[in-house]
């Protein structure tokens, strides 16, 4: 590899980027706007879940229970229905995610036997919301339950303490308030960088073929490896800029706690960018037409990165053969790395496994790309 030829290619590529301001703007603005937009959009925390209530009794006790729901920040009572069909319509139309039904003999049962039950009707189409909403509702009901018990004991003039044989003391580490944003946003940076990175380079070679400039390049003494690195380096700089934007927005704007070191972040980001850019380059070498290259790039990047990288859907909960597939998704490693650096303050030594995987990935792709490119017409 000769430095002079590498430099010549790099300079040509920089000029090409510079003189296509529209593409440059897209490359710089795309990650910026996406971070802002999605930073707000990606949120799994459920608050103010819309519910409707159906109080079939209308007693003091049943109203007191509904007051507990009203006071909870997790629920927003949007309808008080008076008939079953009304409730069905509210849930069918997705106006409410859940319905609380109090039976007509609620206070009678509560006074007679001390045991009464309330129904939570859940819109099961969204199982996660249904599960979490039920958990919150159960907590509200049990709070109400102990209130009733205390007031009854009070009336009997007894001061007996409620025996609570065991308490669960939970400590949440790394993400103390369990805010979903804190774990999704670092993953989001990885996803955006994977998408932007691959599309930066995925057209560089096929464009030369389609525009006919490849003949000129082939007639020069440039070697495949010089061409590759010459084309990758300018985009690496662009990638650094994009990554810096995204990471800064994550930490400064969205306030995701950043506990790691800058050096670990820089090293892993560079490694990841290198993998992503060379994959884009490889695709571009393999597929001569731009449309083909872009379609394949889309198929192999967009949805797999989003769904299989573990940025929202936890990998360890997937069936094992799907887990095997996720090892091929290079963003998986960067998602792991970013989450660990941001939330756990992990250093390079803690991250050796994902870093090693990325290195192997980078080497494999570079070798493949260098082999795939032939200086031949036809």
């Amino acid at each position, binding site marked *: 590899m000769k430095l002079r030829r590498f430099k010549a290619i790099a300079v040509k590529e920089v000029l090409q980027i510079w003189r296509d301001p529209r*593409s440059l703007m*897209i*490359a710089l603005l*795309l990650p910026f706007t996406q971070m802002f*937009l999605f930073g*707000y*959009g*990606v*949120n*799994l925390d459920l608050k*103010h*879940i819309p519910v409707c209530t159906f109080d079939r009794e209308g007693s003091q006790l049943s109203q007191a*229970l509904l007051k507990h729901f009203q006071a909870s920040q997790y629920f927003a009572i949007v309808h008080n229905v008076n008939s079953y069909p009304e409730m069905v319509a509210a*849930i069918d*139309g*997705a106006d409410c995610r859940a319905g609380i039904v109090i039976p007509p003999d609620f206070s009678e049962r*509560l006074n007679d036997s*001390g*045991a009464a*039950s*309330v*129904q939570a009707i*859940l819109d099961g*189409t969204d*199982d996660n*919301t*249904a*599960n979490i909403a039920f958990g919150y509702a159960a907590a509200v*009901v049990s709070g109400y339950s102990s209130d009733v*018990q205390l007031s*009854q*004991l009070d009336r009997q003039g007894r001061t*007996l303490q409620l*025996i609570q*044989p*065991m*308490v*669960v*003391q*939970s*400590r949440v*580490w*790394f993400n103390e308030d369990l805010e979903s944003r804190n*774990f999704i946003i670092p993953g989001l940076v990885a996803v955006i960088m994977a998408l932007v990175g691959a*599309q930066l380079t995925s057209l560089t070679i096929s464009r030369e073929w389609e525009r006919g400039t490849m003949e000129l390049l082939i007639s020069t003494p440039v070697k495949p490896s010089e061409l590759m690195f010459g084309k990758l380096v300018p985009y690496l700089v662009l990638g650094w800029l994009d990554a810096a934007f995204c990471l800064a927005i994550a930490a400064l704007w969205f306030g995701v706690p950043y506990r790691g070191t800058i050096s670990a972040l820089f090293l892993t980001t560079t490694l990841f960018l290198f993998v992503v850019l060379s994959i884009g380059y490889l695709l571009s070498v393999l597929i001569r037409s*731009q449309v*083909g290259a*872009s379609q394949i790039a889309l198929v192999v990047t*967009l*949805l797999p990165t989003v*769904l*299989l990288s573990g940025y*929202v*859907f*936890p990998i360890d*909960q997937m*069936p094992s053969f799907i887990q095997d*597939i996720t090892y091929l998704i290079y963003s998986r490693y960067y998602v792991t790395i970013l*989450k660990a650096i941001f939330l*756990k303050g992990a250093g390079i030594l803690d991250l050796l496994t994902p870093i090693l995987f990325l290195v192997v990935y980078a080497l494999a792709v570079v070798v493949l790309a260098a082999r795939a490119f032939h200086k031949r017409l036809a």
Partner: protein
Amino acid sequence: MFARVIPIVIKEFLELRRDKGARFLLVVPPILQMLIFGYAASYEVYHVSTAVLDLDHSQESRDLISRFTSSTRFNVVKVTQSPRVISATIDASDAAVALVIHAGFAELLRKGQAAPLQVIVDGTNSNTALIALGYVNTIAAGFAQDYQTDLMQRIQGVRGTRQVQVTLEQRPWFNEDLNGQWFFVPGLIGTLTLVIIVNLTAFAIVREREVGTLEQIMVSPIRPAELILGKTVPFFIVGLGEVALVVAVGILWFQVPFVGNPLVLLLGTALFLCSTLALGLLISTVCSTQQQAFSLNFFVLNPFFILSGFSFPISSMPQVLQWFTYLNPLRYYLVVIRGTFLKGVGLDVLWPQLLAMAAIALVLLATSILRFRKSLE
């Protein structure tokens, strides 16, 4: 007018027929992606990897821990005697939950004083952590309840106190077992269709422009509206085929029940296809090179995907973003597809969604025809 539209339709089909790679791309990746993503996309937590530190070694502590070991929700991966191992296990993500029982646990229990069960949760994935904590609480509450009943039977004086208990019964509708696949597979059908169709149509006009064949079309007497229409029809038919393909995978492979009216789904699909086609064509008319179309594709698809309610609930978004989602055809289609699959609701419930998609389709198509006319001058 039709005399000029039909040749364009035929030309597009011929182009597709002569492109072997494109045909392959239309059939194989959607099926593969449905199969893989259908398994991957889920928030369900089946097995929480757990580390256990028992410093009490009492019958009570062993009883409590055995409740976790025997639960299908927990998977005890490490039993240790050292607090340092516990923190290392959590740090390395080998376990998501650690249970710590300190010495003196049984003594406190017997005295009737609140005995602590310490739970350390890796909050990195807040959703999993929340669900895991819920499981821990359920098991702990069961243990506490059993212990209390036991205790009350032994201590005479307490027998007179009546327990008051209000329970909450769980009644999930439409998906009794709260199966996560039933939520995500219909969503995937919509998402995959969006990606495929926009990607296909985004290049439709820009390619002609780059290859230079657009000039030939322009010198023919065809009008912009006719050209757009001629480009739309073949992709519409292809899109219907794509939807049929992925819906078949969803119903036959993933066994997601379809309880609604297929005609309502067909109508919804047709309107959704029109709006996504129009979106792709708009991208195609705005861009002058295929690379720009490609970048814009990414720019557009990811927001559509994230702001659709596919994986992130719209009701949790800030108000401004919620307004944005009203511009997203996928948002409406997901309601239609989940409504017809699981709820079996009909036009009386879904008409606003259908109307919204029709409006989006009309506006986008009109804009792309106008844009196209302008770009000719």
